[in-house]
């Protein structure tokens, strides 16, 4: 029987309604930003073009902008600027029904808790930021977490590694940690060395919360994974120690085959330089220096100072390592490195040549936060919390999962032995070799049992 006109009309109406529904459902997806899809061709961290007024998404870089460590926030400004340029050039993020662009606010902690607290308060109360991101120094982060809780503002911890930060009573639902922890680094290293010939380990760590906690975890894991391992020495040095020679002489005398070192900044650099200057050769491989295993070995300056060959064998256990086999990572590297060649001081040094280590960590963190607020359709903290708990981010081929109970990121850990010559990095220095991935399940960050079962949904 031939379809009547009325029936045909009904089919057309239903078809149109279906198309409208699909369009309306698909529209947010098509308007969603995608990392690295924006116009980054002219991005220059010295001449950033994000909006400075209007209805924007205000992201605060809450970190050290002054004093001897000002390079930290200076670098994060370049990284967030890159992300902002990328997203803003794609039209921004749909928030509360409107497309909003990212604005960057600087908040100087001066690397101390009290100024950090005041800077966080000013950013929240005067600058009306939607989120604080930072910070170098777990002692400063503690102060910021209290402020975030008081003013109910999201705080993204992308650089403070002390495990205790995500325990009660400091923890609050407003804080999300997107970086690793001391314990996850230590566990990953313990598992890495379980499969290797070295058996004598010397612990040389900074004498504060992070150093002690990491060392304790490493010793425990080593006991479980490598019963024949020996800790032949254990020392804790004050942060910003000048002369490591007396410590390194004890390392030499102990016959250690690996130095497990939790040190950052000038300490990490001086340790690397001075151990080579003292001629601390590996007992197992006399053509190499005693490997130091650390999360912060990939700073360009000390590796340049000791030269390429001397850097071979160092073991980098960062929580963010570029895996160039992944297409999106390769794309990121290409874009970044091409731009870097056009940048002027202070961004034209080897430190910025590739977006590795801490740069990659923060980049991932900023993109992830932006994806979350896009998912939530809002910067309202409660909605962000609901959207972020249990969320994953894997644009760079490496899945990050936000543990809902305590807002701690869970991810596999990459470990690399430094090699020379290195194809990608600075030709004057050793660089990360093939990545050994330690599964997340084997190196989980610590978890405060009191938070078990806590969900905001």
């Amino acid at each position, binding site marked *: 029987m031939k379809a009547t006109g009325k029936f045909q009309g009904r089919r057309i109406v239903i078809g149109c309604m279906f198309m409208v529904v699909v369009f309306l459902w698909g529209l947010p997806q098509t308007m969603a930003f995608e990392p690295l899809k924006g116009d980054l061709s002219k991005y220059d961290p010295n001449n950033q073009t994000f909006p400075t007024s209007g209805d924007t998404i205000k992201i605060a870089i809450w970190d050290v902008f002054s004093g001897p460590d*000002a390079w930290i926030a200076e670098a994060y400004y370049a990284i967030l600027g890159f992300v902002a340029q990328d997203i803003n050039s794609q039209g921004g993020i749909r928030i509360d029904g409107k497309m909003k662009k990212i604005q960057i606010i600087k908040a100087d902690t001066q690397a101390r808790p009290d100024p950090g607290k005041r800077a966080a308060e000013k950013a929240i109360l005067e600058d009306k930021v939607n989120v604080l991101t930072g910070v170098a120094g777990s002692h400063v982060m503690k102060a910021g977490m209290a402020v975030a809780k008081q003013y109910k503002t999201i705080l993204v911890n992308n650089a403070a590694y002390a495990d205790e930060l995500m325990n009660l009573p400091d923890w609050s639902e407003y804080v999300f940690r997107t970086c690793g922890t001391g314990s996850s680094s230590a566990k990953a290293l313990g598992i890495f060395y379980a499969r290797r010939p070295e058996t004598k380990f010397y612990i040389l760590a900074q004498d504060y919360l992070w150093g002690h906690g990491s060392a304790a975890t490493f010793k425990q894991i080593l006991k479980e994974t490598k019963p024949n391992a020996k800790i032949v020495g254990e020392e804790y*040095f004050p942060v910003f120690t*000048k002369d490591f*020679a007396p410590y390194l002489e004890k390392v030499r005398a102990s016959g250690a085959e690996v130095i497990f070192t939790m040190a950052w900044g*000038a300490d990490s650099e001086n340790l690397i330089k001075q151990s080579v200057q003292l001629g601390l050769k590996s007992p197992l491989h006399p053509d190499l220096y005693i490997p130091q295993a650390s999360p912060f070995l990939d700073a360009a300056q000390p590796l340049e100072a000791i030269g390429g060959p001397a850097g071979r064998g160092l073991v980098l256990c960062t929580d963010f390592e570029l895996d160039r086999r992944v297409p999106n990572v390769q794309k990121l590297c290409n874009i970044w490195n091409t731009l870097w060649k056009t940048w002027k001081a202070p961004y034209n040094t080897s*430190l910025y040549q590739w977006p590795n280590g801490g740069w990659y960590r923060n980049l991932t963190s900023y993109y992830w936060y932006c994806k979350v607020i896009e998912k939530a359709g809002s910067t309202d903290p409660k909605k962000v919390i609901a959207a972020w708990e249990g969320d994953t981010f894997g644009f760079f081929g490496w899945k990050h999962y936000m543990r809902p109970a305590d807002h701690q990121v869970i991810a596999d850990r990459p470990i690399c032995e430094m090699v020379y010559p290195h194809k990608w990095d600075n030709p004057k220095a050793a660089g990360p070799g093939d990545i050994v991935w330690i599964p997340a399940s084997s190196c989980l960050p610590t978890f405060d049992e009191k938070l078990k079962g806590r969900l905001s949904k």
Partner: protein
Amino acid sequence: MSPTAVLYVAQAIHGLAYGMLLFLVASGLTMIFGMMGILNIAHASFAMLSAYFCYQVLLYTGNFWLALLIAPVVAGICGVLTERFLLRSVHKQGHLAELLITVGIMAVILETVKLFWGTESLVVTIPPSLKGLLHYAGLTYPIYRLFVIALSVLVLGIMALILFKTRLGKIVRATVSDADMVSALGVNTPLVFMLVFGIGIWLAGVAGAVAGPLLTVFPGMADLLGMDAFVVVVVGGFGSLLGAFVVALFLGELNAYGIQFIPRLAPVLMFAFMALVLALKPMGLFGERE
């Protein structure tokens, strides 16, 4: 030598090297205080400035020896200009004003190095002629650290020669004792002050330049060196070069053997020693009552 003996000898030399570096920084500071009564808070900042100058000369010429020669001299000139145009003008206002202005100078130097050299740490490598290790009776020791010791002894020798064997040295020592009397005898004491300040900064500059290959050259370098230098000056006695020398060496050894035997207490030993000395002799070990 047995491995234990090798370890202890190595620690002794490490202590000596560090002590000598401390002495270079502290000697200028104690001279300036002894002469002018100025506690120069910015002293270590000038050492840091010299390290940056050393980096810059090395970058242009590739010659470490030239950098070692030029950098401290330039730092010394900066010191002379500081004394002439800043410190001299507040001298009449008393010691507090002088102290405060040196705090300001410290901040200016910090921001200046950040402005010109950025905030990252810089690479200063050991020159090829001083690279490598000395092997002797089982001991392995870096040649560069031995150079630091030798250079410090040379500098000390030159200073002692100038101070005790030259007319200039006589004038300087006399001015330390009684500036008014020396002025009454027709000596241009402001010029002597300027010279002494410049030499003091030059000494800090030498320390900064030799420390560059050992330590990280970064804007926080002054903080690393400054506190220890003040302890040396306080314990040794303000204005006493001999005191600065003896205490610097002692603290260097205390640090090395402290780390060897009681590492957890090593960072506080220096301050504990300072407290003990000041309790027993408030003017410092070699300081004199006015």
